[in-house]
């Protein structure tokens, strides 16, 4: 059991990692408690545990590293490693994988769109994030903490939607 757990990590919203043994000691508590601002991500280095959609999104983000200066033909700047890692750590928290796109304003965009037109978009910047939501044609937008993106996505898909 400990061998498996050793390959797991917790990631804070600042992409700090804690070795799996520490997670083991936390999760072995009857009711583990984490600081409210702490974004817990448990994932495995073994790619067989990772969904196809997540793997594909991670590959896409890795590909953004190859977008050099002027990648859009309009002098867009390359993406920082920190931004890509931040976006990646958010992806690991999500029950439903978004479509992932680069923007030419130093941000990475996650999109969800339902067949009825309902829409949810997150734009992740190095030091902030925001969302745009259109539900029943009613639009709302605001800043969002990356640790709350998980909740926003679950809210969008409704309670009980937890299949990754």
């Amino acid at each position, binding site marked *: 059991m400990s061998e498996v757990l050793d390959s797991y990590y917790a990631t804070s919203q600042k992409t700090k990692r804690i070795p799996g043994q520490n997670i083991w000691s936390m999760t072995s508590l009857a009711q583990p408690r984490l600081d409210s601002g702490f974004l817990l991500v448990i994932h495995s280095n073994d790619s067989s545990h990772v969904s196809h959609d997540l793997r594909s999104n991670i590959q*896409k983000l890795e*590909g953004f590293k190859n*977008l050099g200066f002027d*990648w*859009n*033909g*309009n*002098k*867009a700047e390359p993406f920082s490693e920190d931004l890509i890692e931040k976006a990646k750590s958010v992806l690991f928290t999500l029950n439903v994988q978004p*479509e992932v*796109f*680069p*923007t*030419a*304003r*130093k*941000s990475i*965009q996650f*999109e969800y*769109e339902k067949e009825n037109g309902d*829409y949810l*978009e997150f*734009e992740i910047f190095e030091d902030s994030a*925001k969302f*745009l939501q*259109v539900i029943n044609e009613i*639009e709302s*937008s605001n800043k969002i903490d990356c640790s709350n993106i998980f909740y926003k996505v679950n809210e969008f898909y409704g309670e009980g939607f937890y299949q990754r």
Partner: protein
Amino acid sequence: MEKDFIKDEEILYRAVKSYSNWWKEKENRPSSAAFKDSRGVSVDRDFGKEESDIVRGLKKRFEVKAVVKIETLFCRKIGAKPMPKPIPKIPEHAEIHRSDTIIELTSSQARSLAKNCKIVFSE
């Protein structure tokens, strides 16, 4: 054709590049991310040219996944500002800005353009 002012009835064409993965396959249209640019959304005015010539010109300049078009009037309806920005050898070049003073579109404006643009060419 007025060089310094874009009339409501003018059509603006945007090249959606292939290498930046901006295309939403399921919806068969670009993501709003294709309209988020800190330097302004680069477009070509029709300048009275045939659509096929405009598409040919954009394909020559860029590796495109698609070419989409949007009406100037629509841009104005969502509060965005199409502005003539001629560059050497491309007098028809223009940019769409959020307002007279801010370049980057709002998320809502970018989504409106992505949802309402019409595809005139796609790979």
